């Protein structure tokens, strides 16, 4: 039976104040965990309410204006408050410095500041929620966003502020990876999670300022009418879309790259096999980061942008598939002849491979100009990005959370319940969203409150799926909270993994390492080094 260490980062100092003024990257990760999961819950509630309303073709319990506000809030909260910060701010903060053998991130105070900025920005979002909501969709397209009477300004201001939080996290990670790697930790001995975080951080730093200026311009356009986006003032609404997607397309990769980073860790740790194609995966992260900047116009094929631009964007879009494909093939090759452990993180990893492949491949359909004209603004799009965002990022995030949970708290959750929850989420997710592919291909437009009766069975099935998924999430919340109190101590290395974080106690000591560790073996040298698992169910 394992024992919990006597002092660790959780009990080194006590009291609310010690948490609110902490500069420890692990504690900041935990602060982010609770605040981000709170917004995940809110965003999820909106999703459930939306699906419930769509159970019937006519109005069930909310009117169309409320419906518009609900899908906007679902989107805006999930994107800006949950999925963009989730993996970097929670798991990245907690794990990245330990993985590369550092005592903290490069700028601990800036790290804490980024959490406060996150909370400050989220207050604006909450304010717009209670002060009449927003009904523009999370994209705030002009000219509607400059004319609607809902509280667009506070929501965009919130997103603007959240952008700074994102920039600071990214900046911190880049410097940490460059300057704080421990002796022996060369670039190509870095765990792939660090590579993924690094590529994500580059996008965060390069793209987020453009979002900042875009939202600022939108706010000024709404108040002063400067004439950049509003056609009534001589502006060009399509230009807004360029500005918006120049950030938001790379932002899609801010969401998915960390997910891929987690999968690279999980797949090797839980199949105890050296990762296949380390360099290819590492470079493909950078490749995705670069490619993400030159394809934004594929969101605008039907917007009235020039045909030349549309063709260029369609052409360039296919290039994004290459690095993503490289990753998927390498992961599958890693599994080959591995000693696969059927742990919860592994189940999530397999779910990821399945769902992300569907999400990614449907993305290629949509990147083809002519196909997109038919599928644009239908449920096909909705299904596609949910397969990537939920099936990819959220599933990877949950896998990572289950993987590092024993490291965070020193305790293990109930594996049986975890597997059931994983199954429920997987089945519920496919019920909800695969139906939407079919519905979309048949022409059901997105964002419609009332719909034709022929789509009724699809919508109803999709709604049932959302309930299955919700049960899975509630079960997960239950066993995770429960594990904090009654979970069995997990020991230092419950998975028998080789990266640095598993060589220290769980939970880790306050300053991670007694002395800066020397990296002796590669992060995935399962063929050379054997690490015994410190945890058994019995």
């Amino acid at each position, binding site marked *: 039976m394992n024992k919990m260490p006597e002092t660790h980062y959780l009990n080194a100092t006590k009291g609310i104040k010690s948490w609110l003024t902490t500069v420890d990257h692990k504690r900041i990760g935990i602060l982010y965990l609770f605040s981000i999961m709170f917004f995940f819950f809110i965003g999820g509630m909106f999703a459930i309410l939306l699906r419930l309303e769509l159970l019937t073709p006519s109005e069930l319990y909310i009117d169309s204006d409320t419906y518009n506000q609900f899908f906007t809030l679902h989107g805006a909260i999930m994107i800006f408050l949950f999925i963009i910060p989730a993996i970097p701010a929670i798991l990245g903060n907690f794990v990245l410095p330990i993985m590369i053998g550092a005592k903290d991130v490069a700028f601990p105070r800036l790290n804490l500041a980024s959490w406060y900025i996150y909370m400050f920005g989220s207050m604006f979002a909450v304010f717009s929620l209670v002060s009449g909501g927003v009904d523009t969709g999370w994209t705030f397209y002009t000219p509607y966003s400059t004319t609607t009477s809902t509280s667009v300004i506070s929501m965009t201001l919130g997103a603007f502020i959240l952008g700074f939080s994102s920039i600071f996290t990214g900046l911190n990670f880049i410097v940490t990876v*460059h300057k704080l790697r421990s002796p022996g930790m060369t670039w190509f001995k870095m765990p792939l999670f660090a590579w993924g975080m690094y590529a994500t951080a580059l996008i965060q730093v*390069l793209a987020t300022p*453009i979002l900042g200026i875009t939202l600022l311009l939108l706010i000024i356009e709404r108040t002063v*009418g400067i*004439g950049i986006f509003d*056609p*009534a*003032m*001589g*502006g*060009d609404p*399509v*230009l807004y879309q*360029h500005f918006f997607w*120049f950030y938001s397309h790379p932002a899609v990769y801010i969401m998915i790259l960390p997910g891929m980073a987690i999968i690279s860790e999980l797949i090797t740790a839980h199949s105890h096999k050296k990762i296949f194609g380390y360099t290819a995966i590492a470079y493909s992260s950078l490749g995705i980061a670069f490619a993400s*900047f*030159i394809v934004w*116009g594929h969101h605008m094929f039907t917007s*009235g*942008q*020039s*045909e*030349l*631009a549309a063709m*260029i*964007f369609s052409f360039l879009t296919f290039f994004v598939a290459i690095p993503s494909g490289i990753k998927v093939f390498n992961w599958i090759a890693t599994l080959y002849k591995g000693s696969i452990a059927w742990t919860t993180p592994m189940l999530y990893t397999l779910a990821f491979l399945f769902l992300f492949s569907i999400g990614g491949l449907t993305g290629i359909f949509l990147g083809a100009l002519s196909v997109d004209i038919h599928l644009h603004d239908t449920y096909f799009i909705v299904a596609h990005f949910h397969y990537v965002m939920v099936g990819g990022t959220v599933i990877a995030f949950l896998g990572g959370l289950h993987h590092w949970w024993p490291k965070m708290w020193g305790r293990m959750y109930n594996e049986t319940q975890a597997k059931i929850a994983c199954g429920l989420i997987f089945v519920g997710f496919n019920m909800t969203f695969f139906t939407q592919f079919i519905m979309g291909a048949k022409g059901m437009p997105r964002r419609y409150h009332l719909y034709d009766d022929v789509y009724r069975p699809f919508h109803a099935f999709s709604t049932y799926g959302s309930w299955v998924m919700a049960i899975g999430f509630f079960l997960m919340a239950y066993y995770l909270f429960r594990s904090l109190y009654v979970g069995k101590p997990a020991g230092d290395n419950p998975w028998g993994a080789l990266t640095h974080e598993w060589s220290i106690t769980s939970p880790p000591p306050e300053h991670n390492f007694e002395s800066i560790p020397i990296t002796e073996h590669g992060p995935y040298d399962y063929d050379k080094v054997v690490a015994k698992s410190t945890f058994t169910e019995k």
Partner: protein
Amino acid sequence: MTDNTQTNEPHVLPLSIYLGVGSILIFLTAVTVYAASFNFGEFNLLIAMLIATVKASLVAMYFMHLKYDNKLYLLLFLSAIVFLGIFIVITMFDTLRRGDIYEIKAGAIRDAVIYDSLHITPDAHALEDSLSISTDTTEIVIDTTK
């Protein structure tokens, strides 16, 4: 700093470099103002931007020590410019090419509503200027009936 990154001794540039670069910057400001008094047509923009770029490079290289520092900083600095370039160029593939294939039926860019109250009627020349995007390109409209 230079290659000897291990030491804590700062790399001090001689005073003459700062004063020299400073004088060149002020001289180039005078040159660009002077050059603007001539009309080189299309080259006005090019000349002004060329001088500005030279000035900016001098500031970056000497005042910001990019010439002597870790080349990573130079790379970061240039990557910002490159991404900005991508943004401008690809966006212009749209904004300057609308109506190339299918004619834009409505006017591309109209006058803002505020001018109704200001009682300014845009002169014919200006109107043509604003609509040039669609009028210039009507000749290459593809006849889809064939």
